[in-house]
């Protein structure tokens, strides 16, 4: 039976008086360079979906000269199926705060934002209180533990726009603009928020960084394998008996174990058709192909990605066109509307799928694949580029089984 590893998950951490801030204290003791080195050596990769090495991001940001530098905690968790950041914000906000402080200290920033999606009202409430008490306790806005490090932190509420989860869209949103992505380069590390060097990190990434620096969990960095280090929070949902949040060590558990052991297998008497392994921007993994260890590289090898950690099990009882339409509607409605491939491509895909459902039309797989390619190669941001991964993978795997209109599989 697969076992959970508990680092990120755990008891509630809400009382600042009883929280020791061991990681940031450790960092203050060893200094900026060593802090960055530790995170770099830990092999930590961003947990928001793109998987960029956190330590390298910090190192680059630390080297950039700037009038001001910013750290932004991206808590705009919006990828359908994902709820790990909400858990961390609601249950372990002090870890999140400590992670932000670590990042700021490491890169030499004295101002930070946390951008929490507007729908997470409980998270917003909890984190606002944390900020307030942290200010009272001189954890924020004051020289921390008599060091020369001082951090100011502001909370910004999102307002219902998935694309703001993209780091440059999020920066625009904080600046009070439409949440459309920026053209890179320049990357945020060079010119981000208010044109200043900016590090944007996901909530879970920051909590991982806090574990890396935590003297009580020195073994954290040793977990996993090269290329996939530490632990990962998994959000299990869909047709599972035991959906919920789980923490696993990389490469020590297979996707099959995740589904059948942790997730308790498929609800009712249904059979699994496929797993969406990292949220709806990732390509599906067929039920018969789940027997591989959970790691970044294993998914990459299979043309997919572990994305945000949203593992969604889909049984055979569902209509595939209905599911594709659901995902298609999501991307169609949530594109920022700026770049033509993403805006128009997702609109057309939705039209094509709808026509297939309602009319006796043949599914135009070539057209879908042309549009898919156009979006993947030419869209402006990562969210756009990956918007058709689910749909094209379903068509690739099940295209032959799709039948005209209505019910579509034997």
């Amino acid at each position, binding site marked *: 039976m697969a076992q959970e590893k508990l680092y990120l998950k755990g008891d509630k951490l809400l009382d600042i008086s009883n929280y020791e801030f061991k990681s940031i204290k450790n960092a203050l003791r060893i200094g900026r360079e060593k802090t960055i080195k530790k995170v770099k050596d830990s092999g930590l990769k961003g947990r928001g979906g793109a998987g960029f090495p956190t330590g390298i991001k910090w190192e680059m940001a630390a080297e950039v000269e700037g009038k001001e530098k910013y750290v932004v905690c991206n808590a705009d968790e919006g990828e359908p199926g994902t709820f790990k950041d909400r858990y961390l914000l609601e249950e372990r906000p002090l870890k999140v705060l400590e992670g932000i402080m670590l990042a700021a200290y490491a890169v030499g920033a004295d101002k930070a934002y946390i951008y929490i999606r507007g729908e997470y009202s409980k998270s917003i409430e909890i984190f606002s209180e944390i900020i307030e008490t942290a200010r009272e306790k001189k954890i924020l806005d004051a020289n921390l533990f008599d060091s020369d490090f001082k951090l100011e932190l502001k909370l910004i509420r999102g307002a219902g726009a998935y694309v703001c989860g993209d780091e440059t869209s999020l920066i625009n949103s904080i600046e009070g603009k439409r949440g459309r992505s920026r053209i890179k380069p320049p990357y945020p590390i060079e010119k981000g928020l208010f044109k200043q060097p900016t590090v944007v990190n996901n909530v879970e990434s920051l909590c991982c960084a806090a574990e890396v620096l935590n003297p009580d969990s020195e073994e954290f960095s040793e977990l996993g394998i090269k290329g996939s280090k530490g632990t990962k929070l998994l959000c299990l949902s869909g047709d599972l008996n035991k959906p919920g949040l789980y923490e696993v060590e990389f490469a020590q558990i297979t996707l099959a174990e995740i589904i059948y052991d942790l997730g308790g297998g498929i609800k009712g008497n249904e059979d699994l058709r496929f797993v969406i392994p990292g949220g709806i921007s990732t390509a599906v993994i067929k039920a018969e192909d789940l027997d591989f260890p959970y790691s970044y590289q294993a998914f990459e090898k299979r043309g997919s990605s572990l994305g945000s950690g949203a593992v969604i099990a889909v049984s055979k009882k569902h209509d595939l066109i209905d599911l594709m339409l659901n995902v298609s509607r999501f991307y*169609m409605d949530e594109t920022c*509307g700026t*770049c033509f491939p993403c805006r*128009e491509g997702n609109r057309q895909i939705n039209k094509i799928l709808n026509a297939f459902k309602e009319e006796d039309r043949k599914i135009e797989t070539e057209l879908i694949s*042309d549009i898919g390619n*156009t979006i993947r190669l030419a869209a402006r941001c990562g969210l756009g580029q990956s918007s058709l991964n689910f749909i094209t993978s379903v068509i690739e795997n099940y295209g032959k089984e799709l039948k005209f209109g209505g019910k579509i599989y034997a």
Partner: protein
Amino acid sequence: MLRAEIDGLNIELEEKISILDAAKKANINIPTLCYEDGLSIYGGCRLCVVEVEGEDLLKPACATEIEEGMKIKTHSKKVRDLRKNLFELIIATHNIDCQLNCLTCSRASNCELKDIAEDIGLSKMRLDPIKRGDSVDNSSYAVIREPEKCISCNRCIRKCEEVQGIGIFTTANRGPETVVTTFKDRGMGNVECTNCGQCILSCPTGALHELYQKESVLDILNDETKHVVVQTAPAVRVAISEPFSNQAGDISTGQLVTALKRLGFDAVFDTNFAADLTIMEEGTELIDRINNDGKLPLFTSCSPGWIKFIEHFYPEYLDNLSSAKSPQQMFGAVAKSYYAKEAGIDSDKIVVVSIMPCTAKKFEAKREEMAGDVDYVLTTRELASIIKSAGIDFLNLEESEYDELLGVSSGAADIFGTTGGVMEAALRTATELITGEELGKIEFEAVRGLEGIKKAEVEIGGLKLRAAVANGLGNARKVMEMIKDGEEFDFIEFMACPGGCMGGGGQPISSDKNVLEKRQQAIYKIDKSKKMRKSHENPYIKKLYDNYLEKPGSEIAHKLLHTKYKARKI
């Protein structure tokens, strides 16, 4: 020195520039759509994407700086296939169908989308047009918007905001609901639009065009009971041939007059005449304000886009505006009074049509303060279209002269068509009137050229006149802020459009990057070729004052040739 390779060609660059610019230097055309010279980079259409060696994803050439050692393919198969697929998606949102088709489009003869389709070798269209069901915005007297044609390239938004400094347009909503619109979808006629029409020049889709009066004018020309007179603005004669020749900078005053006569206008007159008249009235006003401690600086009032701009954004400065009507309106007022009397025609029967490089003139003619002066306003583009539809072979027409009474003008009037022209014309006359001596050098070089803001100190008989010239409303705003910050001027020329009237929103849409320079050179050439180059020397102006208006600034001149302004909300 930076070295890179584009399509197998080795290039060397002095500085980092975009892949798009570097390709241009190597004589490689990369198709673009949301890109426009002089506007910020948007990076939305993605048509200009290119392949960079070592990268899977394509890069937008407009927004990507070239790096040392980069190897770029601008037209590889991967890129070409993608552009075709992408363009199919774009065209589907342009909504061409039986109702909304290319034949009736304002850009029928110079469609940017069609050119792109040809450039990328589009061969099939697999997607049906998207029906958004947006209604036409016809709330404005000047500019019509057909959102169904709009592909959200954002050029009008950037033009209005970045060049004109106004920002009546925005991208609203997101996803499939993303549209370009005005504040709360109010319509251009119900927001702080100045009617300058610069957005029309930027729109690649024909979604923006002037409010057409072509049909009304053709109808009135067929009405035997009416005496239809026409006036042509200074900037029209250096642009009207462009839709026929596809070439900028030609002067075709004589052909213009012939064409108008052939179209059946009863008299063909010149707005230039009224420009000379404007100098007399405005010049007198300037001298009067200087001598009698009047409100300074004096602002010119010829450009109706500028007038609406100041009414919206700087109403506290309305008293600085010259009360003189614009030449178009002066012409109308004089045609319906003086000309009616001299020609013995009942003024009720006179219909005044203007040919203007301008869309704001359509709004100006409708202003209640001046209602009735001018009945119809056609843009240069509309006139070109009428000439075509009448089967007139414009380029090969013989030349004719304007009808005399309101058709003779000085070179000073011709230069009204360019930025700095009104200022120069005023300086020529003011200097001679104040000093009583003939000017040696007639050209005032300091106010010439295409810079957005020009400042000059001019000595006139011991008086130091602090002059400024601004073209483009973005620059007008800058000058207004200088004034607010305490900078002192005596006389300022403001033109709403970049380049002045020759760059007006009603002018032919040119693909020539140097179109403004060429039109400007043509204007100065006309001025130089004239014997009479100062407004006050125009014998027909003298005659007008002698026989009818008494003297500049007289009571009757005020009644006919001056107007009032009003503060408007934003």
